[in-house]
């Protein structure tokens, strides 16, 4: 099996699985319990929180464990809306956000909020001047995706933060770092990030766990109420096995990140150049090979339907994602690729390859060979 769908999810590390099992079977206490079993579990959570805080240069009490990226994004938006409604009812985001950001914004819109959605250029970058022009006195939040899940476009978070604060120092800045965390250096202080969303299963951790970074002193309100866990901000018994599992993944990811990035760059470059050089009518969607995230590669195969290509790769146990879900009844063209101004015909043949540090150059080479064969075969029958 060649798994090039790591932006969808990753395989958990063996060490992570071991930790999860340990927490489920041996250290299974409830951190809220007063007894020793509770204390033992709590100690593991404290350690985990420290590891994770350090990974983004935050304080442990700025880290809140959540069920993942979607919950964290929802929290940033609805929590800010609740806490800052007196300062204004305007938020700004981009046209290439994940639905976990766009849909909550749409919900606010239904309730009378004003939402500005910034367009992007053909590589997926927002325009800083446009952003500045969009910020108003009543803008309470700007939310941008750090690395886009479909194209790998990396926004300059530090520059964005500076731009926001230069116009309105009260406007908060949230970053959706689900595809960036563990793959791109994040320093929330240096980058001026007020809130950050991360998901565990994209970085070889368990599914159903993630975290939310919220800078100390913000008035962002909780969206889940109950027993007052996570310092009253996010109720619900701590998911101790997944928290500890996530921290284990983070520990290993962080230690290997620089080396991993270099390696993944090579995998991506091999695959991308191999495809572009040996298969006619192919092109990169989004930023250039070097400019985009090494972990994401979006390639258009003109004249092919991405779903069909996906299924024919699947026959050879190569797993990728389609840039669009098309069928005869409903066109489900990717909104992200549309936002880049790529025309629908080209989107139809878009395939996303996404990598992790365990992918190899050999896999990329193998994939090129199979793609050559499949693309030639399928093109024969495309009418």
């Amino acid at each position, binding site marked *: 099996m060649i798994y090039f769908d790591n932006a969808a999810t990753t395989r958990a590390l063996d060490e992570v699985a071991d930790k999860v099992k340990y927490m489920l079977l041996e250290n299974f206490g409830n951190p809220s319990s007063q007894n020793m079993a509770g204390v033992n579990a709590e100690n593991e959570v404290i350690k985990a929180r420290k590891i994770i805080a350090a990974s983004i240069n935050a304080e442990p009490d700025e880290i809140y464990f959540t069920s993942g990226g979607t919950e964290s994004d929802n929290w940033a938006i609805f929590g800010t809306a609740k806490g800052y409604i007196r300062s204004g009812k305007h938020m700004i985001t981009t046209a290439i956000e994940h639905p976990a950001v766009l849909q909550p914004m749409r919900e606010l819109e239904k309730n009378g909020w004003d939402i500005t959605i910034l367009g992007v250029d053909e590589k997926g970058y927002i325009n800083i001047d446009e952003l500045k022009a969009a910020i108003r006195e009543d803008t309470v939040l700007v939310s941008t995706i750090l690395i886009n899940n479909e194209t790998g476009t990396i926004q300059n978070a530090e520059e964005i933060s500076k731009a926001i604060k230069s116009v309105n120092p009260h406007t908060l800045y949230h970053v959706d770092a689900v595809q960036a965390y563990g793959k791109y250096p994040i320093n929330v202080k240096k980058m001026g990030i007020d809130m950050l969303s991360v998901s565990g299963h994209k970085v070889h951790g368990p599914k159903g766990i993630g975290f939310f970074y919220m800078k100390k002193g913000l008035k962002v309100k909780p969206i889940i109420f109950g027993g007052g866990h996570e310092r009253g901000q996010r109720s619900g018994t701590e998911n101790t096995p997944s928290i500890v599992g996530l921290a284990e993944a983070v520990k290993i990811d962080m230690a290997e990140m620089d080396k991993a990035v270099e390696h993944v760059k090579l995998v991506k470059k091999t695959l991308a150049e191999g495809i572009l050089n040996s298969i006619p009518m192919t092109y990169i969607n989004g930023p250039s090979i070097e400019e985009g995230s090494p972990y994401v590669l979006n390639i258009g195969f003109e004249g092919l339907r991405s779903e069909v290509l996906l299924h024919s790769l*699947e026959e050879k146990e190569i797993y990728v994602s389609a840039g669009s879900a098309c069928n005869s009844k409903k066109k489900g063209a990717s909104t992200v690729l549309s936002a880049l101004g790529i025309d629908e015909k080209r989107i139809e043949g878009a395939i996303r390859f996404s990598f992790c540090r365990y992918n190899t150059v050999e896999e990329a080479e193998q994939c090129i060979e199979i793609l050559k064969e499949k693309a030639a075969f399928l093109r024969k029958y495309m009418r």
Partner: protein
Amino acid sequence: MEEKVLIVRYGEIAMRGNNRKLFVTRLVNAIRKNLDDMGDYYVVREQGRLIVEDRGGEMDFDKVIPRVVCILGITGVCPALKTTEQDIENIKKVCEQHINEIGIDDYKTFKVETKRSDKRYPLGSREVSAAVGEYILEKFPQLTVDVHEPDLTVNVELRNDAYIYSKLIKGFGGLPVGSSGKGIAMLSGGIDSPVAAFMMAKRGVEVEGVYFNSPPYTSERAKQKVVDLAERLSVFTGGFKLYVVPFTDLQLYLLDNVPHDKLTIFLKRAMTRVACTLGERDEALAVITGDSVGQVASQTMQGLHAISAAATMPILRPLAGFDKQEIVDIARKIGTFDISIRPYEDCCTIFVAKHPETKPKTSIIEKIESKLTELDKYLEEAIENTEVIEL
């Protein structure tokens, strides 16, 4: 001792003849299959009825009734109280308990109807009705008797045991599955074909299905969708056999060798042939399709003629005269609609021409087809590699 049971009624007329026993057995098996995962249920054969008993405890009618009433051939079910003690004093008490259980808020008038198949019983039917009626009047003073149009009819059936009930929940009726022989339905995954299969099953046809799979042009999920449809249909019939035929190679062969605007006609003829061959093996007597005249290009009268000419057994098209909305209404009623609208490609649409031929001439189609020297080879290959899924 009284317990909750479900009385199952089936169409008596269909039960004539020597096959009666076989049909009843099929119904019993279908009920058992549908209740299998829910607990310890027994199906007892009574004269002209089936009685479902819960040996695991008190029967939950809300759970059991939907699983039983949907089975084809069943005209209706009655949630009932059964008692083994048949003396009139006990019957009265059980009737009271029954009325308490169903609640009388909705009722002002009632009557009691007694059927006595145990003729040794000391009281006549009318005497039982009168005695029970009097007792009910006494216990529930808000009710009055109306023998012509009562809001509530309390039925007392005296058989080997006594059964008290007042509600009939109607089933689909129809004929018990298998009472009319076998048919093979072509399932595409769309809205129409499962409805067609259901319609024929309702007329007693034992329906099996055939699906044409074209990876990589169709996905694993498209196949799963058809499996789910077949499973849904099995709820009505007590089982469903589904053939999955690999069709990619044949499809590409046709794509290479026939005029593109006529591709769908050739494709459907090939499918019809496969369905006939698979059906003949199982002693099926007809192919069933969801064609509705004029709905798409291949469903014109000319198209249907050209397709039918390839068949070696009759093609039943129960939806031929239905409008789309009528079909959708049935699909919703039988619970296949939500499965059918999952957005996966089916094999008929993947290479469809922009302007497909709508008035093919059968003679021309046959002439072209006679030159497709390798068609038989591809058909044989497809049949040989067919997968069978029993649901």
